[in-house]
């Protein structure tokens, strides 16, 4: 494709977005968020406002700072500086209000794998202070919907990647949070499990809840989300309703490549020997 690169203005985080009817506080408000690991700056002073009631995608190439950002937003990683509010509550000053309102599925962190799927849900539900009978009822339904009922007594350590993502999702949904944070929920998941996860998430957002998930699979984000934030090299490159971020580009993938400046970086002529046949 040789279309003109679409210049995207970085939106100011505080303004109301045209896509969502702003009634209450935004689901997430981030101001001047920084995180450095030694020499490397993972998150570069980002400002971001994510409206409530949307299916929101945080997209970016590997190493863009998506996981670091989500970890800081969900209280699992302490930022060097900056403000994070969830539903109007400061994550670090008011953890009581925040932790009961959010569900988290992190990437790269383990579960209590020596419990069976069912035991894990029973554990996390009770830890969140739900009554035991209610936990067991919800767990049974979630296991059923997520197609895990047949493996509910197997230890999570013996689960496949897709099953782990699904049991993690069940654990994140068990206390019916207002906002769900999912870090790469479809990474390494087979198409059948992915469809199951999709179905559950669509049902969840249709009742007004917010899903914020990170991914580098543009087709997926384009088909699921109505709001996206594009991240690269620790900075937010664009944010807004899907149509606005996509602009005139034929697909989100094209718009994304333009935004992160990766378009036209084709495989060079140095690989002229490549193509099978003679060694």
């Amino acid at each position, binding site marked *: 494709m040789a279309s003109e690169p679409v210049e995207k203005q970085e939106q100011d985080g505080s303004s109301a977005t045209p896509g969502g009817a702003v009634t209450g506080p935004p689901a997430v408000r981030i101001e001047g968020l920084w995180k450095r690991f030694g020499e490397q700056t993972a998150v570069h002073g980002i400002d971001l406002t994510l409206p409530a009631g949307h299916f929101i995608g945080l997209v970016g190439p590997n190493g863009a700072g998506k996981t670091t950002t989500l970890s800081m937003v*969900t*209280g*699992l*990683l302490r930022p060097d500086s900056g403000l994070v509010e969830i539903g109007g509550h400061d994550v670090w000053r008011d953890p009581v209000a925040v*932790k009961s309102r959010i569900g988290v599925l992190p990437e790269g962190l383990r579960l209590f794998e020596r419990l069976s799927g*069912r035991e894990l849900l029973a554990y996390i539900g009770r*830890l969140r*202070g739900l009554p035991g009978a209610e936990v067991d009822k919800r767990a049974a339904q979630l296991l059923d919907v997520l197609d895990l009922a047949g493996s509910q*007594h197997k230890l999570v350590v*013996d689960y496949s990647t897709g099953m782990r993502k699904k049991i993690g999702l069940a654990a994140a949904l068990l206390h019916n949070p207002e906002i769900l944070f999912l870090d790469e929920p479809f990474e390494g998941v087979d198409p059948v499990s992915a469809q199951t996860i999709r179905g559950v998430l669509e049902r969840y957002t249709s009742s007004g809840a917010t899903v914020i998930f990170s991914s580098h699979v543009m087709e997926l984000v384009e088909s699921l989300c109505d709001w996206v934030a594009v991240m690269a090299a620790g900075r937010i490159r664009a944010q807004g309703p899907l149509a606005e971020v996509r602009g005139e580009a034929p697909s989100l993938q094209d718009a994304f490549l333009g935004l992160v400046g990766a378009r036209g970086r084709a495989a060079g002529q140095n690989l002229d020997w490549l193509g099978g046949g003679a060694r």
Partner: protein
Amino acid sequence: MSTHATAAAPPSLVPVFVRLKLTLLRNGLRQSTGRTVAYVVSAVFGLLFTAGVVLGLVALRGTAHAGALTVILTALLTLGWAVMPLFFPSGDETLDPTRLVMLPLRPRPLIGALLATSLVGVGPLGTLAVVTGAVVAVADGTAAALVGVLAVVLVVLVCVALARAVATASVRLLTSRRGRDLAVLGGLFVALGFQGINIVAQRLGGPDGLSVLEPLGGVLRWVPPAAALGAVDDVGHGAYGRAAAGLALTALALGLLLWWWQRTLTTLMTAPDSSTLQAVEKDSARRAGGEERGLARLLPGGRTGTVMLRTLRYAWRDPKSKMSWAMSLGFGLLVPILYAAQGNGSIYTSFSASALLGLQMYNQFGQDTSAFWMVASTIATPRDAFEELRARALTLALVAVPYVTLVVVGTAAFIGPWSDFFQVYGLSLGLLGGLFATGAMASALFPYSIPSDGNKSVAPGQAGIAWISLFGGFLVASVLASPLLALTVWLHVAGLQSLLWVLLPVGAAYALGIATLGLKLAAPRVAARLPEILAAVSKG
């Protein structure tokens, strides 16, 4: 360099593999300075130890039992090589032939290259030195020295080939989850084995103790590769027939090992992987029935019971937790028994039970690994943190209090005297309480990762934190128990021996108070440091 590799004739694999091994070794060291230091320190200590053994062997030259001793030493060395890959499966990446499955390699050159690679390293070097020392100890005359050179080569080759063959044969087991679990528990056998060697060594230290070795040496003398050492001894005594038989046996063993290794390697590289087989397994139908629900019903409700149930399940199901529990319980009992066996028995040795079980309170969150995020995401207040810590302490107490009671009563009954029972029991409980308090505090302030694979209990680079928190905590806990000690001493000095029973209720109350205080102090620190703790325990 790489242009040579594209030449038409397939180059020998040996230099490629040796270079791979050296690169892996160098890159492993480059990862962190702590690792480099640890490697250098352990290498220096290993070499010093080896040098000591070699010097000892050379000093044995000409003594009566040198023959039997060297034969047994060689057999032990071989045994070590045989079991090493089972306990340290992840120690050497070139050890895992399944990584080479996609490369177009024939078994025979592969075997040669892998064998050559195995000869590179500190282990084979140490073995070479020790076996050479053993040969020096027994070789008598030029002919024996010549046979000795052959014996050294044979023994080192058999050791290395044996380790490789066992590793290959067990790789299927070791790459499965259950196999890895077993390997972790293997550390327990190593630890207990050391105690056994300790006892044997003391027996041998007695007058004319070495003569005990003769019958064993007589048998092992015909077991390869120790047979090669026996052959060196025989040549010195002119028994050329026996010597030839010993050498032939060892060479035969080497041939058989190589053949077995090649066979298992071929099977392994052409058969499906264990992860595929595992995925096919059906739901294991873990006893979801009444048994666990019955146990759960006995536990308190809310966070306390939930955390206790999880901790108890982990103590049984998680190999790392299981091993640390088994170590504490085993050694807590072993210490009084060992001292009694040596004739130094005392009721005061029963302090080991409360000391070892109390140490279980340390690094509570490290035992969770990065799954600690699930705990962190449900802790919003210091109260939540307190309940979490208290539940873990209660689980520990559930085992520790009856166990300490049992050990103290046992030592009082078998070693005595009963007159010291109350003070020892009271002080034991006080120490336990102090360790719970400092353990909770150390869990909050000095968390570290416990790698889930292999035998390591500390992630690289965090050993310093682990040792400081354990030793520092132990010192502080001893100081915390000192009021009880002072009371004990005062009762004795003031001649109030009839009132010594007071120490039991006072000790119990003191333990409860100090533990609660420790948990209360630690809880706000846990609540305030959740991200820092998560980062510290996620390195494994």
